[in-house]
């Protein structure tokens, strides 16, 4: 693992002579900054980035409607609003923007069926459901949206194989599954997932090479080391992956000369794959990298500082089926805030939720 090389690569990104790719990616610049900063923070190198200038840049990207654009002179969009809020959370500077307006912007994108549009032009996608609740969760304002409808829409995207697509009926796809499990975690609804079925579908993404693909019969890609792995972590089944083989695959995607990670061994590197390669390794337990939160793809210590742990993410608890155990467990849970309780849901067993993420009753 060539952490120094990766840090050097990210620190220098954007000032290199070959600017074509950088130019072309201006339309996602806010996300590009989020990828760079997050991976630097995970490697303990955040101080090498230029905090003040980035904060000024973000301020210049907030529009009157409250939404934030990818770069100056671009239109606002939910994707870049989330990235901006994530960056400001990393820097503990959320108040440099008008937070109330951001909240209004996000709220205004919810549709009647509970889904979220990416911007005023109306593209609907479960990615945007995730962006909406992640943004609001980081700002402590989840309560402004119609939660029931939002959940209803995401669940309507659950497919016969246990996975999720971008809209109801869309093919299950690892990226969308990450967004939906992340969404359900934030909204305290993970018990609605068939964790065994989905967990199996996700661990089926692992190919003999050790790498992970995003759908059946597709090629492996290092970014799926994040989408698949984080989703497995969220539903408590990350150990169903052969970790050693995956680690080998991820490491093979590094470029020894330039630093950074590519989508697969031998290809060109970029910050996107660099973040997800490093974050994947963190989830696999590499101790040289800070622990990463599987829902937000941000360092755990940042989320702890914000106070998002454990109240906003549902934890699964092993719930015994007999009454004595049940009573014992409930007494012990009273001391532990946050956990969501559920009962085994087989085909012929009722599912009962005994308490929500914020209700310990």
């Amino acid at each position, binding site marked *: 693992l060539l952490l120094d090389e990766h840090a050097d690569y990210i620190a220098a990104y*954007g000032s290199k002579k070959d*600017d074509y790719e*950088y*130019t*072309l990616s*201006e*339309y*996602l*610049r806010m996300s590009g*900054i989020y990828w760079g900063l997050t991976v630097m923070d995970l490697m303990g190198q955040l101080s090498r980035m230029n905090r003040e*200038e980035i904060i*000024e*840049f973000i301020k*210049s990207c907030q529009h009157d409607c409250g939404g934030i*654009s*990818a770069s100056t*002179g*671009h*239109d606002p*969009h939910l994707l870049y609003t989330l990235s901006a809020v994530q960056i400001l959370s990393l820097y503990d500077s959320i108040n440099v923007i008008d937070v109330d307006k951001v909240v209004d912007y996000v709220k205004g994108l919810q549709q009647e069926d509970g889904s979220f549009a990416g*911007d005023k*032009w109306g*593209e609907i996608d479960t990615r945007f459901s995730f962006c909406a609740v992640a943004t609001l969760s980081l700002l402590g304002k989840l309560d402004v949206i119609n939660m029931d409808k939002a959940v209803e829409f995401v669940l309507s995207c659950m*497919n*016969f*194989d246990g996975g999720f697509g*971008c809209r109801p*009926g*869309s*093919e299950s796809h690892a990226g969308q599954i990450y967004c939906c499990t992340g969404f359900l975690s934030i909204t305290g609804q993970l018990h609605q997932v*068939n*964790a*065994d079925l989905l967990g199996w*579908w996700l*661990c*089926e993404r*692992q190919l003999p090479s*050790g790498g992970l693909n995003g*759908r*059946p*019969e597709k090629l492996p890609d290092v970014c799926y080391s994040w989408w698949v792995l984080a989703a497995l972590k969220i*539903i*408590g*089944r*990350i*150990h*169903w*992956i*052969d970790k050693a083989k995956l680690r080998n695959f991820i490491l093979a995607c590094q470029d020894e000369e330039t630093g950074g990670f590519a989508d697969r061994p031998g290809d060109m590197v970029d910050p996107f794959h660099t973040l997800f390669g490093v974050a994947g390794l963190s989830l696999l337990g590499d101790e040289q990298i800070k622990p990463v939160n599987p829902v937000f793809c941000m360092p755990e210590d940042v989320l702890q500082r914000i106070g998002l742990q454990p109240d906003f993410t549902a934890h*699964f608890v*092993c*719930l015994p*089926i007999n009454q004595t*155990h049940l009573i014992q467990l409930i007494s012990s849970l009273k001391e532990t805030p946050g956990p969501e309780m*559920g*009962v*085994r*849901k*087989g085909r*012929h067993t009722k599912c009962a939720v005994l308490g929500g993420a914020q209700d310990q009753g």
Partner: protein
Amino acid sequence: MPYQFYKLLFNVLVFYFRDRKEWADLEPVPQDDGPNPVVKIAYSEKFTDVFDMFRALLQNDEKSERAFALTTEAIDLNAANYTVWHYRRVLLQALDKDLREEMKYITAIIEDQPKNYQVWHHRRMVVEWLNDPSEELQFVAEILSQDAKNYHAWQHRQWVMQEYKLWDGELEYVEELLEEDVRNNSAWNQRHFVINHTSGYSDSSILDREVQYTLKQIKKAPHNESAWNYLNGILQDGGLSSFPGLLEQVTELQDTCSSPYLTAFLVDLYEDALETNSSSYDQQEMFNKALELCKFLAEEKDTIRREYWNYVSRSLQNTYGSGDPVSASSDPPPPPSSSQLPDMEPSDP
């Protein structure tokens, strides 16, 4: 060839917007990243020319033919720039442009760059404005003929079909695609989509047809995750062990069409028989066979997923076995069996 030569050639051939007299009234607006530009953006000169001019138009909120022409140039340089697409749509409406022409334009762009969110969303908007889906299915079919798994193409197709109720002939289309590539997961998903929205699966003759169709495809290509997922998916409601003759049919396939998927399917079927306590099956036999197959998969056939198979084995033993609860060597004692609860890693709370 030296760089300087190319630069000279480029300058001769390209007539920059900033030099064109019909653009002389506009002052190009250079990129401004704030007081101390941190995000250093070094453009090639043509980019600079086009996008500086674009920013000027945006600032003036200009709605004109030359603005429309500029969006074409900008898209040509970078079709992923969503702000340019937005502006183009504003102009399409403000200038009352010919939307049929726009359809031709977006068709060409998508054919060139079929894996881009903006182009597909733009097409959808034009179709909505025209309220005319008549070209869509054929167009998507053409794109899919180049890449039968293009996720954007499939979303567009599903939207058109649902919005305009164009279900006829789709099952036949899916079958054609599966003839070409029986492992096309998108096509299997589409099969489910179509039937779900038309006949549904509750009619036993439909379900039977689908089961037989799927088994036939499996015989052609046994190592096919999508087909097995589909089979499992359509039988979930009724239960795998309740479908008459299925166990026999699948067992028969074991000799010629063996795969980890077939074995996994048998485990699921045995587990369903146990769960429903079905009298059609010898419960002890189901239990023993299920455990045997889990071991086979963990140790030989699907070792990369041994953790999963060991979990299934433990769950079965804990639920249906007669002995003491079984744990993984590092499980906290005693874990309940469940399909819905987490199979906790040792380090989890």
